[in-house]
């Protein structure tokens, strides 16, 4: 009997639910100094002077550093695609370009002393005009980087095929704002560093990618990777925003080397809202065309991506949007071009879905708009255009090759489970009755890409002489449950209890190589690497067993029910893992170990259908999510409990983007949502119990048949909820409401529609 596919409870949880995790801020670092940053209070200004003298004289202060003290090169461009002239200096160099940009680093004996002294740093700003809206920024009237001469950091112009919509009976265009949101991991950014007597930098980081931190930090400090040792202890969430290195991390490392003492830094929530990268931030101009029988024949998406003040990961995410532009549909002509521009705001980065939720939001919103235009049920329009299950591998108009899918099945299940026809009946009843609380039903049929930038991953399995197993993985989790899942994979291959399996991650010395945990890649890449290493270690064990039994190797079998090897036909004479591991060490001194550097088997394409039911109070505009049905297919599910957990968290964040969350700046670039009172972070009180279902269509791309599940929630849920809100108001003449569908915004849409009708 296989352990795979069972709801094995998380091995991680007893610790988290009792004594709690150990995060960077919890680490005992005797004698550590505390670093705080003086941050810009202006969105765009020249720094006439920075007077640190009063702060340096304050009690407990060890040093105050500004840009010139560091002598460090600016941050690197993103894979060579973003302009050199727009790279971020490690501390502001003469100009600040967003509120929250680090200007000075202050180091003191205590955190309290550092915070008090930071208030004594006097920054003389010469204000410059700020530009906040990317639609304005692209006009280049206010330039952030004079040396670049433009605010445009990156463009992908596929050329516009004007004939694309020729012959379409129906053609509709809509501008859709996919608003900027804050990732808000519960653990904010945190780092610590000290230098060993041998001169090695010991670095602790709340990161999704410790090996990436090691390499980036080494380059920034002009060291070799081996001169840096990174450990990421427990990490309290990242959502993509902790996948890269920040300027603050580099300052922490530099200060530890420069001062010769341990240095630690943990940002506050208020700082995190300005300093941790923001997600999304696209203005999309979408055009859909087709015929009145419901066939969609053309789709064009022009993306304007907000990079924030310095082009980072967010700048290149529209490539992912383009990859997924035509969604689950057989649209013969589809294209996506984009332009990424800088603004005087916090830089944007990857956030749960990273470019794919934006794609799903655009096509799914436009399918509903198309359905409304031709007066057809949105479920029926989807049915008529879904890629058939026998059409895979399927190449889309932009060249993306989908591996496998049963799209129609997830739609049918979602409609059935939700009771779609009954919901429509109830909707009609409320409309006929003029009920102030209208019902809306929203659908989203999505497909996304996981392990989208295919990279390999490291995994190893070692059996110790006492028979316990140690697994080393390059995917460093921050809440996903890798310890449980990887234990299950190894238990499945070795036939040992999961209690005897230790999973090690997040230490660049113990795990020699690694890429990290992001892009829903872990099971596909890291899991398959560990799975292969487990298969390999069984084969090595068979070699040893053959020697011990003095039998032919092909006659050696592993009895997984007992975790023992024997010669075929003589199960009573068996040797356990401990004996084989001991024999391995005795024979050659080498542990019974298999290491795998898995070459990437390429991306996979999870899919599904989400259906949301909302109630809209048409008198106030307040939206309540009543039900959310998620039917997801991530290929083979190793542990449904973990998969559901991923769906739950992702759906919550998706609902939050649809209804609540938005990073808002005023016209001068002052943030208006820089704490969790003003930023509408969602809570359980705003959410119903989710109805989560899975179908399992194994991918042929990897041996486990697994696809990623980490981001399907934000990708699937956001458009479903968004569509449900508009659906509730369709009879009032509302065709679109931008996200988040806040009470005032919804009420304004109702009022505007009423005025249009009246006019």
């Amino acid at each position, binding site marked *: 009997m296989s352990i795979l596919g069972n709801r094995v409870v998380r091995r991680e949880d007893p610790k988290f639910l009792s004594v709690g995790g150990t995060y960077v801020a919890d680490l005992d670092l005797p004698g550590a100094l505390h670093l705080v940053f003086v941050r810009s209070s202006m969105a765009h200004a020249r720094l006439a002077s920075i007077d640190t003298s009063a702060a340096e004289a304050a009690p407990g202060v060890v040093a105050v550093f500004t840009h010139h003290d560091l002598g460090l090169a600016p941050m690197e461009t993103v894979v060579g695609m973003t302009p050199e002239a727009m790279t971020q200096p490690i501390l502001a160099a003469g100009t600040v370009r967003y509120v929250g940009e680090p200007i000075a680093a202050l180091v003191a004996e205590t955190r*309290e002393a550092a915070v008090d002294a930071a208030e004594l740093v006097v920054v003389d700003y010469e204000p410059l005009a700020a530009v906040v809206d990317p639609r304005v920024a692209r006009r280049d009237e206010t330039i952030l980087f004079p040396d670049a001469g433009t605010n445009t950091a990156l463009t992908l112009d596929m050329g516009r095929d004007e004939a694309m919509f020729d012959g379409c009976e129906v053609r509709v265009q809509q501008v859709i704002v996919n608003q900027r949101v804050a990732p808000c991991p519960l653990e904010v950014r945190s780092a610590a560093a000290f230098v060993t007597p041998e001169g090695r930098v010991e670095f602790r980081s709340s990161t999704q990618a410790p090996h990436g931190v090691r390499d980036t930090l080494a380059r920034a400090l002009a060291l070799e990777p081996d001169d840096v040792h990174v450990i990421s202890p427990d990490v309290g969430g990242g959502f993509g925003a902790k996948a890269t290195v920040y300027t603050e991390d580099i300052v922490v490392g530099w200060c530890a080397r420069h001062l010769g003492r341990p240095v630690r830094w943990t940002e506050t929530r208020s700082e995190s809202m300005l300093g941790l990268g923001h997600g999304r931030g696209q203005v999309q101009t979408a055009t859909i065309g087709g015929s009145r029988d419901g066939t969609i024949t053309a789709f064009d998406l022009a993306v304007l991506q907000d990079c924030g003040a310095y082009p980072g990961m967010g700048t290149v995410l529209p490539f992912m949007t383009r990859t997924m532009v035509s969604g689950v549909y057989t649209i013969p002509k589809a294209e996506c071009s984009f332009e990424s521009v800088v603004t005087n705001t916090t830089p944007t980065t990857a956030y749960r879905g990273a470019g794919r939720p934006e794609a799903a939001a655009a096509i799914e919103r436009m399918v509903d708009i198309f359905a409304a235009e031709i007066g057809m049920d949105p479920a029926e329009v989807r049915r008529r255009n879904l890629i058939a299950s026998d059409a895979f591998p399927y190449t889309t108009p932009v060249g993306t090759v989908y591996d496998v899918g049963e799209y129609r099945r997830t739609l049918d299940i979602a409609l059935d489970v939700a009771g779609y026809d009954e919901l429509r009946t109830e909707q009609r009843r409320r409309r006929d009755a003029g009920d102030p609380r209208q019902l809306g039903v929203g659908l989203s049929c999505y497909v996304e890409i996981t392990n989208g930038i295919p990279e390999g991953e490291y995994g190893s399995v070692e059996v110790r002489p006492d028979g316990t197993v140690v697994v080393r993985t390059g995917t460093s989790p921050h809440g996903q449950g890798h310890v449980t899942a990887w234990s299950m994979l190894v238990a499945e291959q070795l036939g040992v209890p999961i209690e005897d399996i230790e999973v090690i991650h997040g230490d660049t010395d113990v795990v020699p190589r690694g890429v990290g945990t992001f892009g829903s890649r872990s099971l596909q890449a890291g899991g398959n690497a560990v799975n292969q290493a487990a298969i390999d270690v069984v084969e090595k064990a068979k070699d040893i067993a053959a020697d011990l039994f003095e039998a032919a190797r092909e006659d050696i079998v592993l009895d997984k029910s007992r975790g023992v090897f024997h010669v075929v036909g003589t199960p009573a004479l068996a040797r356990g893992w401990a004996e084989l591991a001991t024999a391995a060490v005795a024979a050659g001194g080498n542990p019974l170990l298999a290491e795998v550097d898995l070459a990437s088997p390429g991306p996979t394409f999870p899919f599904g259908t989400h259906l949301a039911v909302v109630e809209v109070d048409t008198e*106030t505009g307040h939206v309540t999510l009543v039900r959310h049905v998620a039917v997801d297919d991530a290929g083979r599910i190793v542990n449904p409990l973990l998969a559901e957990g991923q769906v739950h968290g992702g759906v919550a964040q998706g609902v939050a983007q649809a209804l609540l969350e938005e990073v808002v700046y005023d016209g001068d670039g002052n943030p208006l*949502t820089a704490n969790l009172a*003003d930023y*509408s972070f969602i809570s359980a*009180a705003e959410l119903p119990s989710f109805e989560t279902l899975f179908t399992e269509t194994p991918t042929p791309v990897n041996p486990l048949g697994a696809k990623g599940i980490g981001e399907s929630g934000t990708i699937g849920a956001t458009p479903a909820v968004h569509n449900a809100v508009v659906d509730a108001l369709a009879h009032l003449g509302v065709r679109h409401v931008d996200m988040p569908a806040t*009470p*005032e915004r919804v009420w304004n849409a109702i009022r505007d529609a009423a005025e249009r009708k009246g006019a």
Partner: protein
Amino acid sequence: MIPAPFDYVRVKSADEALAKLAEHGDAAKLLAGGHSLLPLMKLRLATPDVLIDVGRLSELSYVRDEGDEVAVGALTRHHDVATSPVAAAGVPVLAHVAGQIGDPQVRHRGTIGGSLAHGDPASDLPAVVVALGGTLVVQGPRGRREVAATDFHRGFFEVALAPDEMLVEVRVPRTVGPWGFHKLTKRAQDWAIVGAVAVTTADGLGVGLINMGPVPVRARAVEVAVAAGASAADAAASAAEGTEPSADNNGSVAYRQHVARVLVRRALEDAGV
């Protein structure tokens, strides 16, 4: 997120609190539940030199039946008001509203006196006490005095308390019959974008508005209209009359005034108008 340095004293009686207030004057702030004051201090928007912690004064934590009135000690936690049988019997609206404030953590720390004395017009309880025509009992070096709830709030975060005085009790009349309370929030835990309450006491109908100006608002025009025989819908049409709500990320002035009319109508309907 780290407050400026301050001194802290925990007092054992109301008299000791008053003595400390007399000693430190303006430089001191009373600390009750801390759910309004501490965030301001962490943002360094409030920088008192001395915090006088009155949070454990059990002598001021009670809900008492006093015949025509219910008396609530200033340091009674929202949770204790929400679950008080005396409140449920005498002023059920007060128990209901206390049970809707923030989240369970807030309700177990925040106090009715703290909420009123803080003077935030976005808080729920001040508008309810104003609608009820309640009385606030204030103690200071010159003894005890009573202030009508409608006179207590003077401006945005400004109340009729001298620096050496503290609020010790909130007295509200018993309600008669059904009542209504509605607030619009984005999230359950948020301050109301707008809220409305309608109650009937021996003195007649009282209608209060949350977050519709610098102080909790008594919607007199609505009360007059109802007294004159107007329907809930007709009376509610004047709910926003004379209000000066602030505009922010959650709502423009016009939106808030619209919502006030909607919520007042609903509250009136619930109250049997």
